[in-house]
């Protein structure tokens, strides 16, 4: 995998260079004018009433936490998905590869997914997905 890192780093550097270069070019070439009204937050012509840094709806937080749980658990399934197609890869997963080890691993994965679904049902019933 060491051959992969050099092109990847090159690509990131090139993309960053492009973005920073464009910003710099515009900063050098564009006009620079200031004004009191120009510095105000644009809120449809209203004078801003208060700061933006205030409390916001807790549901965004709940959704973010639910996402984290599901996303991380989802990632656990990828190695199994890759290995399960390949007989050689599968022998790495199961300690002894007799005929029944494979269904056993599958059953374990299904228990895992079942718990995931149970979690989904729980947060659903708790009303996390209710947006009004």
């Amino acid at each position, binding site marked *: 995998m060491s051959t992969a890192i050099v092109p990847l780093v090159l690509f990131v550097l090139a993309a960053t260079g492009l973005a920073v270069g464009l910003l710099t070019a515009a900063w050098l070439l564009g006009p620079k004018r200031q004004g009191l009204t120009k510095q105000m*937050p644009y809120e449809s012509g209203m004078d801003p009433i208060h700061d933006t840094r205030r409390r916001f709806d807790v549901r965004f937080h709940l959704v973010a936490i639910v996402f984290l749980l599901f996303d991380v658990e989802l990632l656990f399934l990828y190695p199994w998905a*890759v290995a*399960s197609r390949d007989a050689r890869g599968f022998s790495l997963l199961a300690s002894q590869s007799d005929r029944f080890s494979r269904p056993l691993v599958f059953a374990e994965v299904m228990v895992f997914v079942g718990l995931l679904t149970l979690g989904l049902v729980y947060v659903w019933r708790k009303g996390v997905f209710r947006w009004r």
Partner: protein
Amino acid sequence: MGSSSELLLAADSSLSPLLLQAIVKIVVLIGGLMTAAAYFVLLERRMAAWIQDRRGPNRVGIPLTGIRLFGLGQPLADGVKFIFKEAYTPAHVDRWMYLFAPIAILVAALVVFAVIPVGGMVPAVPGLADGGQPISLVVIPGFDSGLLLVFALSEIAVYGVLLGGWASNNKYSFLGGLRSSAQLIAYELPLGLAILGVVLASGSMNLEQVIARQAQSGLWFVLAQPLGFVVFVIAAFAESARVPFDLPECEQELVGGYHTEYSGIKLLLFLVAEFLHMITASFLIVILFLGGWHFWGITGGPDAEIGWLQSLLRVAVLLGKVFLVILFFMLTRWSWPRFRFDQLMALAWKIMLPLGIANFIVVAALGEVRAWYDPKFADRFWEWGLALPNWVTLVLGWLAVAYSGTLVTDNRPQRTSRGSDSHAEGFS
């Protein structure tokens, strides 16, 4: 593929062919992508004009000659205009985060293409190839966790959106950033589940391998896993924030969404990144589900001899498919209304996620059945035969969504015999 020392420098301390090859690919890819994004903007505007029965941008051609060229000069003129606009940073923003957000989102949107193949292989070119080996048309050939990288980078886009909205210190930006990050993370899950089905069927997260598997069997994954395809396409629309999921910047409600406070070149970076997300989504739809460079009868299997004609044909087939998918994105944009935010979240969590889980369970179970009877994964009968239960799943899933109807999608207070508002109990 050479070793890493071979990649860095050749023995005579000149650039090694592999490094040179990577640089050429990166330059061509970034140049091509930026140009493609610019011209797709023109195409989209022309298409909008066509659907709304007007002419669209058709004036800008070659300057000083009066030649119009169907408006093909418009993207160049726009780019130059953006560079000469003022690079303004408002006084009330969090300066560094405000600058960092567009850079992060553009870099993430570009770097995804490091693992996305734009064709199969091409024959060796003198000076670029490692000992006469064919050149793979992907920046990192044989990268085994390609889909993981795609997944990770698409979540960095969430950071760009959230940082942009937060750093702007503007209420519209902030609300837009919150809403779109909630949307992006919500649809990340069905996207991952649909990808999981493909990974199960192809046994690899390397996108080249995914295409090779489809070319080998001739069974595109859209035929093998139709429900996964539907889930993936809808989630991909949401991830690239296209209509009907363009809530991040719904002009009528939030001024400009998370990039309200951005102008000039910084706004351009956001817009280009958004277009790149659409192009990425089209590439992924084509590669994961529509067979990549494969087309029955004309492109040959993955083990065929590599010749110039066939390589170029494969590139043309892949890019042609991508173009058609992008046209579909654009047609959808001009013919669909936008979702309301609560509908959007309900669709993600109450419909797409259960459908994704159902698709995953069915695909995994069928794979187990196949492994039991066909442990080498070689029998054509099993390859094609297992598509049938997947189509049954699609129909059943469709019916389930149709019948669950208001239970999961409608969040208005419902009259029941027990009282006026049934929200307190049950699934709502």
